[in-house]
């Protein structure tokens, strides 16, 4: 090819690039991700069902799959994720220093984390509804929180859990001995060996850890919940366009479940909707009509890519947390609003 031809091609390329960038909401984070060619996604790496490393070296869990969903939405390829395990103590610093693009870690949405005068983070919609529970050995005869007076309680230090426990016990006027541990790997064995009368954490985690005990049936959760723990995906407040994109990826997972799109059928359903103009809602959601992708700075078919990559919210839950897994969690509050749960996606229009 001649030099002029090459120049022409480059010019066309630049023009196409401009056209694609036209109307881009201008998210520096998304620009960074596209430059880099991959999403840097923080996961905890050691929460059963949420994120762990499988024997083959791949990250597994509902949090890990959310990273894949975002990569599929932004880059069109769920494999373009660099997983970055971070611990609870350093997660917000890692995010605000720009080390990671997104926290896909169960982080409870609280005022001080959200507010500009606090951590100045931006929370997506609630991804998982949880509450802090207390587990005791059934043989101990403890049925109420009050009965733990003067007894040692195992708790992970530096978490909301620790603060909630202190608050509730003060409210009840009950003195107790907190036994603080740096991580769950130390706290749960200590509890199982009887070093504390009770252990407290998010109910889902307690149930998960209980499934690994020698005798799971010997332990029960107290009926009282110490807190509500709605956890969400977190980005920095300084990039609202990026926060919006992540928010709508989360909504996509819920809307897909509500509309019955699954990993297996989404391609076929899209083909059907393309021919059938009467399926207006489906056509909007799948990006056949309207320009919702462009408004978010995402490709037009980002919803299709997300569902194709990881499935809908219900599929994610069943795959990593549901009754068919060793964790055996019930959907409970995490059902869709249409089935008595709390999850609802705003309309795609």
């Amino acid at each position: 090819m001649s030099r002029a031809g090459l120049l022409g091609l480059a010019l066309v390329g630049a023009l196409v690039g401009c056209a694609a960038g036209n109307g881009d909401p201008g998210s520096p984070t998304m620009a960074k991700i596209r430059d880099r060619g991959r999403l840097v996604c923080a996961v905890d790496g050691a929460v059963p069902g949420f994120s762990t490393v499988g024997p083959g070296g791949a990250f597994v869990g509902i949090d890990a799959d959310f990273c894949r969903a975002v990569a599929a939405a932004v880059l069109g390829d769920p494999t373009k994720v660099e997983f970055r395990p971070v611990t609870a103590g350093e997660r917000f610093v890692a995010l605000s220093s720009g080390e990671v693009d997104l926290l896909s870690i169960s982080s409870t949405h609280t005022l001080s984390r959200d507010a500009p005068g606090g951590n100045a983070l931006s929370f997506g919609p609630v991804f998982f509804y949880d509450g802090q529970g207390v587990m005791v050995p059934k043989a101990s005869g403890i049925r109420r929180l009050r009965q733990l007076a003067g007894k040692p309680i195992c708790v992970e230090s530096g978490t909301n859990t620790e603060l909630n426990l202190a608050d509730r016990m003060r409210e009840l006027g009950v003195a107790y001995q907190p036994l603080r541990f740096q991580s769950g790997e130390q706290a749960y064995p200590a509890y199982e060996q009887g070093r504390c009368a009770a252990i407290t954490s998010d109910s889902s985690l307690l149930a998960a850890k209980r499934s690994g005990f020698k005798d799971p049936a010997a332990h029960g959760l107290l009926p009282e919940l110490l807190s509500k723990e709605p956890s969400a995906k977190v980005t920095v407040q300084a990039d609202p366009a990026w926060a919006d994109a992540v928010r709508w990826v989360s909504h996509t997972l819920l809307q897909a479940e509500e509309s019955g799109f699954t990993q297996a059928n989404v391609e076929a359903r899209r083909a059907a909707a393309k021919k059938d103009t009467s399926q207006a809602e489906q056509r909007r959601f799948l990006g056949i009509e309207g320009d919702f992708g462009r408004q978010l700075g995402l490709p037009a078919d980002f919803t299709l890519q997300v569902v194709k990559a990881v499935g809908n919210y219900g599929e994610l839950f069943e795959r990593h947390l549901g009754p068919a897994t060793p964790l055996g969690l019930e959907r409970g509050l995490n059902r869709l609003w249409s089935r008595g749960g709390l999850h609802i996606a705003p309309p795609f229009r």
Partner: protein
Amino acid sequence: MNPLLRRLRAELFATRADAALSLVLISLISLAAIGCLRWVLTQAQWAVVKVNSTLFAVGRYPVEQQWRLWLLTALLVAASGATWGLIRAHPRPDRTGVLWPRNDRLAVGLLSLIALALPWALDLNLAIAGRWWGLTVLLVFCRWLAGRYGARLSPAGQRLAALVWPVLYLVGMVLISGGLGLVTVSPSEWGGLMLTLLASSFAILLCFPIGVLLALGRRSDLPLLRWGSVLYIEFIRGAPLITLLFLGQNILGFLLPGGLAPERVWRAAWVLTFFAAAYLAEAVRSGLAAVPRGQLEAARSLGLSYPKALQHVVLPQALRVALPAIVGQFISLLQDTTLLSLIGLLELLGTARTVMANPAFLGRNGEVYLTLAVLFWGCCAALGLGSRALERRLDPHAVPSAT
């Protein structure tokens, strides 16, 4: 009476009180040992270690590139065998013991036995077990080859042979990280025992020269150098390692313009290096303090320049004195690498954390921690053994060997 029995009696059952104490202690120890063995053999579920063995060894290193690590292991094994053989071929007759008390054939036998039995006991698949057996054969063969023909090597050749190790370190770095035609494997995919050894060996190799320079600087007559060294050493020793690691991981991003901060595995390795250097400097300084001032003065009055006097007279004596403290520092550095798990790196402990959280292996903490303990003990024991052999070889009070 059998001499062994007589000795036992003298040591354990000399008086009635001794006998009672011995009996109590022996029964307690055997009870504990039986309890441990019963757990290890009958109750523990070792599937968690078997299934995740690759994860423990190399972390998330891509499967299709793992041949590079096998190649590196083979090279390391060959070099170890050759070094071992060379040390055998050039004995120091004025020193007791070389690498192993009495006879290193015993060590070869023991090693071969372990290498034969371990893959079988771990129920590894034949391809992997075969590789381990091949590596053992390679080790023994290289030891034999170098032991047989190594004596013919000239002193210059010997010095050249020692260069194999630094060269191998560089080759290993290329094999692990890629480049020079190999596919790049990002440090974020390194993990397990490999990352532990890599980070600790990097820090050990680099903290030594830095530490020696700092120790010399602290004893220097130049005020700027002296105060600089003191400030550095006291600053680092005043800060816990974990805070420095946090600083390196999360604050560097604020300080440096985007993209300039090195990959975080390297950041952690450098923090470990700078941290260990401060402690090492103090160990070396204790060695320097033990060398009488007259030694330096004598060397200077013989016409040696200051650097030459340091190199040939003071440092060899100082480092020999400081060797036990230095090796202690290295061992604690190796164990300090577990702190990397707290900043989210998947070294051995980080891998263990994630494996124990795998829903399929919940509650298998005992098995995982025991495996970790054995691995760490093995690495530290090797360091300790090596240092004792080195100490014996450097011992100035020569004792002619008995054999």
